[in-house]
């Protein structure tokens, strides 16, 4: 029940109102969808050891384990003790700072256990991230784990030439991308921004900072790709940069939820 002043309000039909706190992307996983939600501004999700037992507590602590808030258990580790991003508040917004080493990344694969992403054969995907632009190296790569020409990829980059894509690599970029390269997305100045990619049945959409900048049509439905095995999160091989939050769900979430999600991420990037 909710108290307003001295009055006690009750909903029609009895029972109690359900108190609703601020929006969090974790709420969008209520239907049991596959995916992942990482919030690097939330220190309680960060750990300085690979096993996720020693909490990070302060600026510049290494991030060797980050807990997935989606409820699907897709926690990520750094590759080794010596290669990890750090939790940093140096940019004004708290986040994970990845420097330029190619081995400085967070990933999940079979050797670390955990649940698969659950993104096989789905007809909708929403991928969103708040980060600073960095380099030609992918910020995010999720794929099926099979090294070779038959991989399926989700790629998120800030560079010209590739942009954002959800693609079946083996069949060629153009034919199977949910969202093709967008030259307007090229930005390696270090500015923070929010990118959202959606595959909604046969349509692909690409948003930047809440603005729809590209739509594709005629995509395969359901999407047969198998984004199941590896999340590889980095921001290196160039100038390095911040990742504030990352969100992937096996659903083309609706406009209201997308607004909420974008607003959350804009706040994490310091843009709201």
């Amino acid at each position: 029940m909710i108290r307003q002043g001295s009055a006690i309000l009750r909903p029609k039909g009895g029972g109690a109102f359900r108190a609703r706190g601020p929006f969090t992307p974790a709420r969008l996983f209520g239907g049991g969808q596959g995916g992942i939600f990482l919030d690097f501004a939330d220190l309680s999700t960060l750990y300085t050891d690979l096993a996720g037992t020693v909490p990070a507590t302060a600026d510049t602590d290494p991030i060797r384990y980050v807990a997935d808030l989606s409820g699907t258990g897709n926690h990520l580790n750094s590759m080794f003790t010596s290669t990890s991003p750090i939790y940093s508040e140096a940019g004004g917004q708290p986040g994970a700072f990845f420097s330029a080493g190619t081995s400085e990344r967070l990933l999940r694969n079979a050797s670390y256990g955990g649940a698969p992403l659950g993104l096989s054969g789905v007809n909708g995907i929403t991928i969103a991230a708040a980060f600073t632009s960095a380099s030609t190296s992918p910020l995010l790569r999720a794929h099926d784990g099979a090294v070779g020409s038959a991989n399926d990829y989700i790629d998120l980059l800030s560079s010209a030439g590739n942009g954002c894509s959800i693609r079946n690599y083996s069949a060629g970029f153009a034919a199977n991308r949910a969202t093709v390269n967008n030259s307007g997305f090229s930005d390696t100045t270090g500015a923070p921004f929010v990118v959202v990619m959606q595959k909604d049945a046969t349509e692909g959409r690409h948003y930047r900072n809440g603005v729809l900048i590209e739509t594709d049509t005629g995509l395969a439905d359901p999407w047969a790709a198998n984004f199941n095995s590896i999340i590889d999160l980095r921001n290196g091989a160039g100038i390095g940069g911040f990742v504030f939050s990352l969100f992937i769900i096996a659903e083309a979430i609706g406009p209201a939820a997308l607004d909420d999600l974008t607003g959350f991420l804009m706040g994490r990037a310091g843009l709201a």
Partner: protein
Amino acid sequence: MTGRFPYRVFIPVPQASIDDANQLALCLGAVPADGQTFGHDWAQDAAGNLYSWAAPVVTSEWLAALSAPIVAPSFAPDADLAAASRAAALLEIHPIAAAVPAAPDRVCAILSANVPNYLAANLAAAGLTPAQI
């Protein structure tokens, strides 16, 4: 220095010593994967000699542990202690203000503050440029 992990140690390992250095990393590390620390990120000196580098964020205790006897960790009882000892014998650590350039016959590590953009300054201090293998 502030923070619980006040230092970065930039460690450029000459190509010929990578296997030995990985055994040292295993003995100083926390998980079996630490035995694969070197061999991913590369740099080269002016003569074209290759080095694989890692740059762990460390505590003062980690630095002190370097002077302790090398032992096999419980998670890797078959660690090659002879190889780890060879790597340790090559290891020198210098503050970045007095950095010694990388050389093929030694491991000249550089101690600097744990700040986000550490790499460019450390590569320059070691006389190295990034390389792709």
